């Protein structure tokens, strides 16, 4: 499977994000962000903010409201808490991404897996450290997108965090609808199947579409 398309155009930034690492960028309106699951079954925790007013940020509830469902795929619009569009999924070769599971944190890991997991890596650490480079802090963290993660809700409300449906080379392409700041945490989670119990690298590519 190829990781580029004619749509991607001129590459502005192209980074391999190692397992457990964070990455961020400002993506100009109209530009594209491609997140590629290089080795498959990896979870990419993702937050997006209006680059000019970071109090306008991704809202999982508004996004779920507007599209009438919890899974993201091609055509999904990531809305802010002001119900304004931040990014649109313009291509998705995976087909299902999570809006409700949020990020792992050292704190939530103590609840889910026991206090002995406090010492392990977690996405909130990445979001805080990477966000701080842009003036963000704890108050700016909200429920995030998990690209490639599969969290179905059973009829009784039970959540499954189950084997991903991703595979090596699958990708999601997002178009910025306004100038946005994006934060990516390449999830270090080793306690559940969302990473196949083995975190691997992602690729993050920012590009200007052809003709821009």
């Amino acid at each position, binding site marked *: 499977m190829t990781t580029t398309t004619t749509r991607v155009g001129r590459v502005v930034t192209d980074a391999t994000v190692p397992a457990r690492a964070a990455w961020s960028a400002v993506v100009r309106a109209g530009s594209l962000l491609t997140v590629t699951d290089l080795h498959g079954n990896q979870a990419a925790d993702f937050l997006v903010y209006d680059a000019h007013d970071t109090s306008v940020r991704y809202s999982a509830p508004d996004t779920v*409201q507007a599209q009438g469902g919890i899974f993201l795929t091609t055509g999904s619009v990531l809305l802010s*808490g002001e119900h304004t569009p931040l990014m649109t999924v313009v291509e998705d070769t995976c087909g299902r991404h999570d809006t409700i599971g949020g990020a792992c944190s050292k704190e939530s890991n103590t609840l889910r897996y026991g206090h002995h997991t406090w010492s392990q890596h977690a996405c909130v650490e990445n979001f805080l450290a990477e966000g701080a480079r842009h003036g963000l802090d704890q108050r700016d963290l909200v429920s995030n997108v998990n690209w490639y993660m599969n969290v179905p809700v059973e009829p009784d*409300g039970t959540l499954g965090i189950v084997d991903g449906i991703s595979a090596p080379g699958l990708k999601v392409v997002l178009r910025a609808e306004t100038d946005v700041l994006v934060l990516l945490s390449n999830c270090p989670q080793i306690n559940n199947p969302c990473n196949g119990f083995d975190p691997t690298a992602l690729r993050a590519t920012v590009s200007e579409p052809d003709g821009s």
Partner: protein
Amino acid sequence: MPVLPASDWPAPPDGIAGEDLVWAETVAGGNYTHNVLARGTELRLTDLTGDACAHVLLYSADRPWERLNTADTVKVLWNAYLGVGHLLLSGQGRVLASVTADTSGRHDALTGTSALARNTARYGDGSPQSASPAGRELFKLAALKNGLGPRDVPPSVSFFQGVRINRDGTTTFTGSAGPGTSVTLRAEQPLTVLIANVPHPLDPRPDYVCGPVEVLAYRARPTGPHDALWNATPEGRRAFLNTAEHLAARGIA
């Protein structure tokens, strides 16, 4: 409107002495309220007409960056639907409040509240002092009155209007259980509580319909190690342990 002193409220909940009431108020549809509750206080919300929708945000009272985290609230207990025994968790691995009683069963932790732009499109206006205020606008005002700002309005939960997730991930609005249902939250640490009573964002009715919600809070006691809820699940037990450790270190409990 509030009744002051709260002990003058004419009909305390069954088993509650009037003098234990610390907050007694009826919040009209399209309005909001807020207060700070001591640890161990119980907060009973009642949908008087069957058309209320109480959108709720919780913060650690003097550390407001520790706040309701809806993702952890559904993820840690492995369930998307709020009901008796559910713990409303902060992002710090601690319990803010527990749900101790519920006669409604129609609640939502996934689709949040309404925004100005959406209410303007649906009802013609969504500004706070209009006839159809948006929940986020009311939350912002309530946050501002507590020294917070728009950054401090994260995803909220809502009570009395239900949403269910279908197998394919789509949402179904299940609406109200009818008039007179109530839900009770127990403050497990000192809390700032914001409540916006506005129509659920998925309510399909073309008109802005929202009935009053009754808010009663009274002195009670927090969940302790010998309560069934403390040990109901391994995840919940660890959340209570984290909370107790934090409060003990601070000299609160």
